[in-house]
């Protein structure tokens, strides 16, 4: 019973962590390379989820919907970068906060105008609707396993892209020292448009994959955006490796906290305290984690700038 619980929660944590990684990867590169705080990153996640849900419903195929939705989100992202964000790169962080917060407000409202205030339903592919028997007496939803698989595959692809290609080399150079990278001949502006498109695609994959598990609704990007920021700050801004490790850490700690803390409290202090304080302590665990990491390593675990 106990091993099964731990196994199940670990898988849940892994799944959540990988999806967080998809969001955090784009965010950390944008932050690392252009020194840009983008509060509208969560909006791309929301728009991605809506587009995937819409294309899936229209085409009747989840996979076709996912593909089209990702492409459309990339278009939206590039358009956003080209028209507005570009003007904010050379401004201070406060202007960026205000500008991207304005975009966040506007995209929430535009989504509400187009799709209405009701949450959208997105069904997982029929073949994956049921559970899979992993061990004797332990079955796990097939769709969640798929998310883990997709997350791992995307993480691997991203790792290959960043460590094995010319594009990745320029990205790493840009994150470590933008001026030097420019001086050495990297076209940081074009590079950034590409990074932003990549970030938008990752957002859409995360939004589309999580769509069937959560409700696709206005404002869904806001809470997860904060988690993504927590991830990149823990991992070290501009570092893909840090984002992956930070995301897995946050995913596991959050999931484990939600199951284990109420159990522990129940054993130690009785059910009444557990029901009251358990969820609170579980929710704040990751913020305690972040504060602790920053306290000992103010630059995060894997700083990209040295």
């Amino acid at each position, binding site marked *: 019973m106990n091993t099964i619980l731990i196994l199940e929660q670990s898988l849940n944590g892994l799944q959540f962590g990988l999806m967080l990684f998809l969001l955090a990867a784009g965010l950390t590169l944008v*932050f690392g390379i252009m020194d840009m*705080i983008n*509060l509208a990153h969560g909006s791309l996640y929301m728009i991605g989820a809506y587009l995937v849900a819409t294309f899936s419903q229209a085409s009747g195929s989840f996979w076709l919907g996912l593909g089209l939705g990702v492409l459309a989100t990339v278009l939206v992202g590039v358009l956003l970068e080209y028209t*507005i964000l570009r*003007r*904010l790169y050379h*401004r201070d*962080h*406060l*202007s960026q*906060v*205000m*500008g991207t*917060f*304005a*975009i*966040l*407000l*506007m995209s*929430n*409202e*535009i989504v*509400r*105008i187009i799709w209405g205030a009701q949450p959208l339903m997105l069904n997982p592919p029929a073949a994956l609707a049921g559970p899979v028997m992993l061990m004797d007496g332990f079955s796990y939803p097939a769709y969640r396993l798929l998310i883990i698989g997709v997350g791992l595959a995307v993480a691997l692809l991203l790792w290959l892209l960043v460590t094995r290609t010319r594009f990745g080399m320029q990205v790493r150079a840009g994150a470590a020292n933008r001026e030097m990278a420019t001086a050495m001949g990297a076209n940081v502006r074009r590079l950034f448009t590409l990074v932003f498109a990549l970030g938008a695609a990752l957002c859409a994959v995360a939004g589309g994959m999580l769509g069937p598990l959560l409700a696709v609704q206005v404002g869904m990007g*806001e809470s997860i955006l*904060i988690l993504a*920021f*927590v991830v990149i*700050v823990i991992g070290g*801004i501009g570092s893909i490796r840090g984002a992956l490790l930070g995301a897995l850490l946050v995913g596991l700690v959050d999931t484990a906290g939600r199951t284990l803390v109420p159990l522990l409290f129940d054993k130690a202090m009785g059910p009444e305290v557990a029901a*009251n*304080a358990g*969820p*609170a302590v579980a*929710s*704040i665990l990751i*913020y*305690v984690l*972040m*504060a602790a990491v*920053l*306290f000992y390593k*103010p*630059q*995060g675990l894997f700083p990209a700038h040295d």
Partner: protein
Amino acid sequence: MTDTTAPQPAAAQATPAMQRSVFDHRLQPRFMLPLLALLIAFPLIAQATGEDFYIGVASRVLVFGLAAASLNFILGFGGMVSFGHAAFVGLGAYTVGLLMQQGISSAWLAWPLAMLMGAVFSLLVGAISLRTQGVYFIMITLAFAQMLYYLIMSFKALGGDDGLSLPSRSDISLGLDLAQDATFYYVVLALVSTSLLLMARVLNARFGHVLQAIKENETRMQAIGFPVYRYKLVAFSLAGAFAGLAGALLANQGSFVGPGMLQWTQSGILLIMVILGGVGHLYGGLLGAAVFLLLEEVLAAYTVHWQLGLGAVLLMVVLVAPNGLLSLRRGMWSKR
């Protein structure tokens, strides 16, 4: 024998009256006094024209103006970008709510206690956060605000998700009935203007000058021998106290406290108000709060999709007036 070409002694040259530091901020009476007169006359005008509703709106604007001004105090003059300021506001609000629930409605107890709670919590947050810098400071203040948010939301005694409805406004006695919107407005106006005067006084004092010098060049101030950390911490905690007061007034204004007050988007909105009005301008927070809330009010009257308009206006301000609306005024003056 005196040499007339020799420079005068330094002491004679720099009389105290002439020693105006670049860090001094004048209250600008010719701008402030008419504004104050208008604010004092406002309820009378509103009642005369039968638009009583706007007295409540004006109270709200003033309260948010105080919250934004307290953020501007550390952000604009101390360079500390706190992304958790709503936590201090919310804490002040919940102090009033919780006391009221226990049957204690005296404003004389609840409001100072709200300030104390804001000050103590911000002292704790600041003591840890101020060890970091820049973006990391932003994130760690946010982290503490989130902790408080989840903590408050999960306690049943505090109403959880639903918050607490207050049976009445605080009791200030003195023959003043705060249930009257106009009376409440005047109390708020008195408290907000006193707070602003206090902030201006602190900024023009030696403490404020040191704080602003730290913002300009922290390393140098450290090297000269100023206890930079302590100065920043005191300022941070002072801002927390004013935010706590704003929270107490906010709870009274709407007769409600809820976890929504502590959400990170609320901290974001306070930041937006400051940036909108003008970072480091004495009246920046107040102006930003007024413009933001009035825009919200006006746009909401026309369309349910007012956030779209609000976002568009904010975006335009960022692109056109990089340093806030008050920088526009300075720009127009210098062109003259």
